[in-house]
């Protein structure tokens, strides 16, 4: 079972790198969907399947694999701006940063005391890497959609960590978290829609009316 978990974790890392190197928004959304599904599967392949785990995993797959991509694609479709990712940091540089992030995550993991009941030794570093890569995406990309994607990557990292490390988290909390994330993305989607309508772009870099 460790092997399956590791495979999923590797998928997560690979999709993150893919995301860092992608230039089209639409494909970014799709990659994110794949990552979402992989995150969902992580729960199922990780250990004994209980109803709780199954239900949550299903919810994750549905939300992250279907609902979010759909929402974001809609927001993207209705915006009449460029469908290019507009990076502050170029794709090659982003990939290099990704490598550094991965290295750092492994190093950080080695610094922390080991957690006794981790599903796989890869869980913690991968979760960290996702978290930081997500933050990096938010910082290094201009479009609002991309920032939401970054947020999702971050979220996936946290989820991974949660599922890999704290398996006993009660379902209610998990569902609550999931619910919040869903609402967050939903709200962000609406916000993007309205920003697009008001500003004629979803370039969050250009939202600089307020300063000082």
């Amino acid at each position: 079972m460790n092997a399956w978990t590791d495979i999923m974790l590797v998928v997560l890392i690979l999709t993150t790198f893919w995301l860092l190197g992608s230039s089209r928004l639409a494909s970014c959304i799709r990659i994110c969907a794949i990552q979402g599904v992989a995150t969902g599967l992580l729960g199922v392949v990780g250990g004994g399947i209980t109803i709780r785990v199954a239900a949550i995993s299903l919810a994750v797959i549905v939300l992250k694999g279907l609902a979010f991509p759909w929402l974001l694609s809609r927001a993207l479709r209705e915006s009449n701006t460029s469908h290019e990712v507009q990076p502050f940091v170029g794709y090659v540089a982003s990939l290099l940063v990704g490598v550094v992030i991965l290295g750092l995550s492994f190093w950080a993991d080695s610094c922390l005391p080991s957690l006794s009941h981790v599903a796989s030794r890869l869980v913690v570093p991968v979760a960290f890497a996702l978290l930081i890569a997500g933050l990096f995406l938010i910082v290094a990309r201009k479009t609002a959609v991309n920032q939401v994607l970054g947020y999702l990557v971050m979220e996936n990292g946290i989820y991974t960590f949660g599922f890999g490390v704290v398996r006993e988290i009660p379902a209610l909390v998990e569902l609550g978290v999931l619910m919040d994330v869903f609402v967050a993305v939903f709200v962000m989607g609406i916000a993007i829609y309205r920003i697009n309508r008001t500003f004629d772009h979803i370039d969050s870099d250009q939202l600089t009316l307020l300063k000082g």
Partner: protein
Amino acid sequence: MTPILTALAIWLATGVLCLAFAKRPRLVQVIGPAGAVLGSLPALFAASRALLCGSVWTLHLPWPLPGANFVIGMDAISAFFTLPIVLICALAAIYGREYLRPYEGRKALGTSWCMFNLLAASMLLVVLARNGVLFLLAWEAMSLSSFFLVMFEGEKTEVRRAGWTYLVATHIGTAFLLVMFVLLGQPTGSLDFDGFGRIAGTPALASLAFVLAVVGFGTKAGFMPLHVWLPEAHPAAPSHVSAVMSGVMIKTGIYGLLRTLLWLGPPPLWWGYLLVAIGVVSGVLGVLFALAQHDLKRLLAYHSVENIGIIVLGLGIGLIGLGSHHPLVAALGFAGGLLHVVNHAIFKSLLFMGAGSVLHATGSRELDQLGGLLKSMPSTGATFLAGAAAISGLPPLNGFVSEFLIYFAAFGLLGASGIPVVLAALAAIVSLALIGGLAAACFTKAFGTIFLGEARSSQAEHAHEAGPCMRAPPILLAALCLTIGVTAPFVIGVLKPVVNQLAGTTDLGDWTGAAALPLAVVACVGVGLLALFCILAAVRAMLPARRMTNEAVTWDCGYIAPTPRMQYTASSFADPLTRFFGAVLGTHRKFSGPRGFFPDSASYSTETPDMSRERLYKPVFIAVERAMSKFRWIQHGRLNLYILYIVLTLLALLTWKLGKS
């Protein structure tokens, strides 16, 4: 303690009533002053009883505020400072009633009187408080209420500037006091004054507390260069308020300093040197800047700085006396400083009231717009003259007595061993002499330009004497100036408990006896001088030549028609001195001379901005503002970077807090 509580209650109640009836100015004009006067009576009674009969008490009430207890007490020092507070407040209230009459219906008199009575109450609380929090609250209430009083004519730009400067200065001063009280309260964990004496055990902390007190209280008292608010706020406030602020409110700073000294144990010599240095600087520079002013109230405000300098000089000499084991010197120094507190309260409020009456009558505070008012305002002029003579330290008035005591103490120090002590005494003597001469110059200028000669403007020409409410308080104060001057040997007896309290454990011996003889002679000389003057005046009157008196125009070396415009102006009167001290004053001169064959106009004007404001605070404020505005780019509006801040903070904290382990 009942009278004190009654006084506080009356002041607070009438203050609130004034606010409640704010819509009816007539009524407020009755309630406010009446409350101020009524409240001061029991307080006056309590203070005199404490001072004369030695009835000392403290009142403890529980007070649910962290660190606070409602502890008030009356001892010699408190009583001594209470006296001028209640006296001046009452008189200023009587004066203010008439002074504010033209504003009825145009200005918020309700707020003004409310704040006035609050100011009186908070000043009383400041000198009676025996708990740090209570003291600070009263202190701040005092600052705040006087701030609102200053802002009475807030629509004027200079008034707003003054209010801002005042509140900022006083608040920064309070910050120092905050730290000081915290420091003093730490050994016992309580902010009651009883326990503050513990600090004396650690001299380093005591010195720190002393420095904090000097800065904190010095800001309120107006030590140069902490005085910046003074020449702004006093002119801006209505005159009766200036009288209270300049006459007594700044003295609460002196009170605070003295109260602090009581806790700090035996003073090292350098405290005395520091105070003498402050006294010299404040005194000399205060009077120099006063000399360079041509706004009457600003001039008076600078004189407050000067007089605070003299007070501090006395206290500094007293501290040196204590430190170098000259009990008589210590006693005389303290006595001189303390007596000057009262004296300055009397003549400074008298002068501000005079300035107010002039302003009231002519609408101008510009010296060079006035002139010849002695004929139209005889009462105001005469009392102003008395005040001017008193503040110049001339015998037989009260100013001389206190300056004499300080001189006396300083001369006593000359016999001390130790060159620094002698030099400090010498510095005090020289600066007192210089201050005396310059003050006389300044007040002859002020009095001469306002009241003597011919009117320089039509307003001054049509001036009218103020009403009875505005005439009576100055007359009373002038009488007090003379009374204290000629009853000095008895007055010193009143000071005795106060000075003895200040000396702490040091036994001062029978210092009043030592001081009484010279003071008695001074008093006799004063009386003799008056008598001799009367005799000479009588002789002059009886001379047969009296019958052959003629009237003519001023001789003026042959000019046929001297006009008022040809009179010496205030600026030109002071010009030789201000030029002589030009390096310190930094006077801006604007001159456009006559040009061409038929020059039609020429002008010359001077302005002396405050040195410490221009050269010390302004650059610092500008530098801080620049430094702060450098930070403003961090709020540039870019969301990506904002999130980067979060990430960086996270990383920074992780490396900082975990890097070590």
